[in-house]
């Protein structure tokens, strides 16, 4: 089925480790986004991408790295995980930015010990 899938769904790791969260969409949407969801903060944009090889920072980019070598994939890497990065991470995509809705994956619950 077409859609947006995130992997893994759950991940536990230790501080200082590198971890990569995967996001894959089958719609060929131009735009892709990464959010984190935390109690008391709602959803906050980490990074977004307008097309392959084009990425830009969102509201909370520090400590994260993204890449977009192919339109359908948008991995998010935590280079050296910290406890403050424990969160639920959502990937989203949209056909166009702004006026069009974004379509969300089911999220990755990441715990950093």
């Amino acid at each position: 089925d077409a859609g947006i899938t995130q992997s893994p769904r759950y991940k536990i790791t230790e501080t200082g480790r590198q971890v990569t969260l995967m996001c894959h969409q089958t719609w060929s949407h131009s735009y892709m986004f990464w959010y984190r969801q935390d109690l008391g903060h709602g959803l906050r944009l980490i990074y977004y991408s307008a097309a392959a090889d084009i990425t830009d920072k969102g509201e909370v980019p520090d400590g994260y790295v993204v890449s977009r070598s192919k339109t359908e994939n948008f991995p998010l890497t935590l280079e050296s995980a910290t406890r403050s990065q424990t969160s639920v991470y959502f990937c989203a995509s949209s056909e166009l930015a702004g006026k069009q809705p974004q379509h969300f994956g089911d999220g990755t619950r990441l715990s950093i010990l």
Partner: protein
Amino acid sequence: AQSVTQLDSHVSVSEGTPVLLRCNYSSSYSPSLFWYVQHPNKGLQLLLKYTSAATLVKGINGFEAEFKKSETSFHLTKPSAHMSDAAEYFCVVSQAGNMLTFGGGTRLMVKP
């Protein structure tokens, strides 16, 4: 700058009674507005969207919302709540560019 305020963090209704989830927005230009629903351990699912066409917008699962520019509101309603409607609901505004602004969310509880 744009902002979204969901006026109630929690709403509790009985099954079969109407649902009203309130949302006010602030936007410099003509916005697009969305309502999303999030069930436990799931992503956000689009319920409906307003993009400057009809002010009364119908969505999935019997939900609808009315865009009122004079009141800067976009309240979500449903005539009759179902147990499966229990979830968290987000009002979202989109303006120029790539940024969405999310409200803080309203948790809807449905009592049998």
